[in-house]
């Protein structure tokens, strides 16, 4: 039941058996705060997820669009104000925002391990860290994404195969390439991608923050980025504000390459009609970063039971499959397919990702993990200092 | 330059203010318009200036006013520019004409001097007395040599001496440069003294338009006569009795004579009048004299008579 008074936080779900939790959640409302910039994702949540939640648990799902940075700040302020019962039940979160939220004590948990679908179908190793920060059960896996480039076969011939080729291409075709300005999520991922490629791979960074290493390696990255800058869109005087802006530039043909942290992004755009049917994706030989995204519950969620039920449903095979369909979203499952019953596994295999999305056969071998978030912050700050404000 | 008004008519919200007003003002001529408060005098000036549209009729100039030779109106409430000093207000018209700086300075200084405003040159209108504002407004208008000059109560807030000097200045300038001038005023003495012709605006119409003496001594109507000053109505029979000097004393015995207070002479005597009221009014005394049932108003420079005293009366030469 939804609590009306705002002075008694209900933390019982953390200890109750899941069946009781589900019982408590029945007939309640769950408010899910999530990034709202993708119409198809919003659609999927509003129709499929909301429908299933209603059908299965009689739960009313309310989707509230909000950038992760903003709701983290909202929670920070609520915490500062001592607001024990807020109005957010579930968050879609990962990486730096998760780290921020954890460090500021904004999250409820651990709860992830108590979700039956996590217990049964998720490989604990694959979700033990989020951008190098321990998860500790404070967030439940929800999906998986991998960085890809986009191009239009009707415009460009064969895309560059590796970063060196990309650089050469950029210099030969001035004004036809750009990347979103960090700290935009996608732009930030692009420079990490470049960092791995120009400094000799990702392994060296996995041990955690090492200032000396960073000081030694990062100049290579800055040099690479500064080398291409004069050849970028608008001569590098300005960068697209965010990835949506880059999408627009790409769709209008102002630049030759798009990029996305979601492999199915191009396919979605084709379906939506804003990309030409000839748009395709590619990855560079140097590797392609992947990450897992999660759901988490705020410390002052009014309906923690409902939030847990929703989080559990989202990682269920049904939801993950539906999400995997390119018409719906095309987001890669966070499940360990090996742990699924054969029949279910078959259904995943049967999904046609569409011509623009690369299969896991291409993506899998090139996947490299995300960098620990301390590097991420340092990279974003360094980019401003060494590239933008140079 | 001269101007002519032809059958001007004006209404405000269906109430007729002016009806069929026609008169002309020649060059070098100064016309005063007098009339009761609310008669439409200001409205008439605005119509001449082109700031109000008449409902009927038209104003015709011998040569159309231009920016260099404008029709200038000095408003009853001055309408000074509040954000400019006195000096800047007066020089405004000259600056608008892109006149040489030194010349502007010289001309405004002359005006400041003439209108005794030198001490206030750098004050803003909000810091002026009413009379000072009025002088600034007049100076601002006069400095640009207007083609036609319209003055709305130009002396209302000036003391006697300033009034005389200002009137003389306006009169001289106007004569010298041939500026037809229309002045609206409540000060009848001033109107009589300075005007070539006087128009009496009464009951929406121009009741009379003539020289001052004609207007005063041969008013077109009883209303006009009474507007210009108190009039004693004396039955013809009585008048014959009083008046050895009466000119054309009434042929008709029922007729009344209209006599102005200054045209009755009081002499000490035993009757038939008795003084019931005496007021001091500066250069004359106003006596109320009872004569049978009649109450007569008499202006007389002699202050020796007292209330209650019986006196004899004589009609003077001028009968209205």
């Amino acid at each position, binding site marked *: 039941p939804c609590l009306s*008074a*705002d*002075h008694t936080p209900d933390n019982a779900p953390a200890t109750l058996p899941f069946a009781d939790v589900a019982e408590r959640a029945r007939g309640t409302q769950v*408010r899910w705060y999530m990034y*709202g*910039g993708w*119409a198809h994702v919003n659609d999927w949540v509003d129709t499929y997820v909301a429908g299933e939640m209603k059908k299965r648990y009689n739960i009313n799902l*309310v*989707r*509230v*669009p*909000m950038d992760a940075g*903003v709701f983290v700040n*909202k929670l920070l*302020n*609520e915490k*500062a*104000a*001592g*607001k*024990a019962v807020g*109005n957010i039940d579930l968050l879609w979160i990962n990486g730096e925002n998760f780290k921020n939220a954890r460090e500021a004590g904004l999250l409820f948990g651990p709860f992830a391990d108590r979700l039956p679908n996590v217990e049964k179908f998720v490989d604990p190793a694959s979700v033990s860290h989020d951008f190098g920060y321990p998860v500790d059960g404070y967030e439940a896996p929800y999906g998986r994404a991998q960085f890809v480039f986009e191009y239009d076969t009707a415009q460009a011939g064969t895309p560059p195969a590796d970063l060196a080729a990309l650089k050469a291409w950029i210099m030969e075709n001035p004004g036809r390439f750009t990347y979103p300005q960090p700290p935009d999520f996608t732009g930030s991922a692009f420079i990490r991608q470049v960092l791995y490629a120009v400094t000799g791979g990702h392994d060296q960074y996995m041990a955690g923050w090492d200032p000396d290493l960073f000081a030694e390696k990062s100049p290579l990255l800055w040099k690479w980025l500064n080398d291409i800058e004069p050849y970028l869109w608008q001569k590098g005087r300005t960068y697209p504000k*965010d990835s*949506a802006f880059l999408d627009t530039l790409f769709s209008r043909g102002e630049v030759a390459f798009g990029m996305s942290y979601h492999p199915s992004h191009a396919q979605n755009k084709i379906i*939506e*009609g*804003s990309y030409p049917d000839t748009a395709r994706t590619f990855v560079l030989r140097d590797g392609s970063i992947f990450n897992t995204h999660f759901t988490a519950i705020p410390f002052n969620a009014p309906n923690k039971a409902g939030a847990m039920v929703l989080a559990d449903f989202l990682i269920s095979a049904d939801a993950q499959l539906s999400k995997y369909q390119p018409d719906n979203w095309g987001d890669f499952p966070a499940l360990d397919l090996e742990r699924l019953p054969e029949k279910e596994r078959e259904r995943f295999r049967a999904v046609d990702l569409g011509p623009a999305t690369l299969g896991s056969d291409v993506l899998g071998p090139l996947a490299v993990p995300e960098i620990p978030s301390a590097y991420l912050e340092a990279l974003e700050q360094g980019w401003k200092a060494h590239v933008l404000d140079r | 330059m001269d101007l002519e008004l032809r059958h001007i008519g004006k209404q405000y919200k269906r109430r007729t203010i002016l009806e069929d007003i026609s008169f002309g003002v020649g060059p070098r001529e100064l016309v005063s318009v007098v009339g009761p408060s609310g008669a439409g005098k200001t409205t008439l000036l605005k119509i001449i200036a*082109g700031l109000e*549209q008449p409902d009927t009729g*038209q*104003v*015709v*100039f*011998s*040569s*159309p*006013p231009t920016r260099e030779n404008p029709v200038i109106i000095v408003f009853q409430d001055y309408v000074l520019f*509040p954000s400019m000093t006195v000096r800047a207000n007066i020089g405004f018209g000259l600056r608008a004409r892109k006149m040489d700086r030194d010349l502007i300075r010289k001309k405004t200084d002359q005006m400041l001097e003439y209108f005794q405003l030198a001490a206030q040159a750098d004050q803003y209108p909000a810091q002026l007395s009413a009379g000072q504002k009025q002088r600034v407004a007049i100076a601002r208008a006069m400095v640009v040599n207007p083609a036609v000059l319209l003055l709305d109560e130009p002396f209302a807030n000036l003391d006697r001496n300033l009034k005389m000097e200002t009137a003389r200045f306006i009169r001289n300038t106007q004569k010298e440069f041939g500026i037809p001038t229309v002045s609206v005023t409540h000060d009848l003495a001033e109107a009589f003294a300075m005007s070539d012709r006087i128009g009496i605006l009464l009951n929406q119409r121009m009741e009379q338009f003539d020289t001052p003496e004609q207007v005063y001594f041969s008013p077109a109507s009883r209303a006009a006569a009474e507007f210009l000053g108190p009039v004693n109505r004396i039955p013809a029979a009585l008048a014959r009795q009083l008046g050895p000097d009466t000119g054309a004393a009434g042929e008709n015995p029922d007729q009344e004579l209209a006599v102005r207070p200054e045209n009755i002479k009081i002499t000490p005597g035993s009757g038939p009048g008795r003084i019931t009221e005496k007021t001091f009014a500066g250069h004359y005394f106003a006596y109320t004299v009872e004569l049978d049932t009649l109450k007569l108003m008499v202006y007389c420079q002699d202050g020796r008579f007292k209330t209650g005293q019986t006196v004899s009366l004589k009609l003077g030469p001028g009968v209205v």
Partner: protein
Amino acid sequence: MSLTVNPGSGKGARLLLGLSPLLVPYLVLFCGGVALTVCQSLGIATPLPHPGGLWDAYAGLISDPAFFASFGFSLWVAGASASLSVATGAFLAYRVWKLPRQLAPLSLVYKIPLILPHIAVAFLVLIFWSRSGIVASAAHSLGLIQGMHEFPNILYSGWGMGMILAYTLKGTPFAMLLALALLARFDVRQIQTAAMLGASGPRIFFAIVLPRLAPALHTGFIILFLYSFGAFDIPYILSESRPGMLSIHVYNLYFKHDLARRPEAMAILTLMFCFAVVFIVAYSRAVARLENGGRKL
């Protein structure tokens, strides 16, 4: 001889023509924007081909009681906050204007809140006025209240008090500035005369000062009302879930990153826009009737 020509005829047309070099880029932009919005609300020129009929989006809205609830609630919040801002602003402006010269520099203080962005004000309201917020804590430690429950539940009363508070805080200095701009040229003798004639402070304020301020206050009211009605920055932080603000609804539907997503969002926007136009026209008419013509100057 020549006649004085009345300059009336054709003057308006010439004036409009004179305005055109300034107005055209303006009109192009705004008319363009509005046209785009209306088209998309009809499913024309949407990025995504629109399957349904022209009026689908509108039909959907009109049959939805929640839409009207939101609409009404938005009206309430906008109306209440704009009225409060204007009233407080006018009053404070008058008091500040009456401050003696020596205290005039102090009056700068009131301009400072202007720099705080709306969103910051929203956070501040949240931090200070929630039941567990700073004010409640202060009241508790001062012994004014025994527990948090006694503190009035301002932010979640169901009446949008939090939003109204935030908008009012932001709107008041704005209304004040407007009113002070008019008072700068106000003749103090008006007030002195009224006082001499025996008017009390409130009567002077209502009978003399308010009519003087009226044009600024009407202007201020329109601006604040429309802003509160259409903005989503403060509701973003302070809105309660039910009833929701219309702007948040639109925001949910469309705001993110791409202007044109959905006929429904655009239909709401179109309706809001129409409402704004109707509101401005109706309000101006009402004011004009109230002030009946001649009172100018």
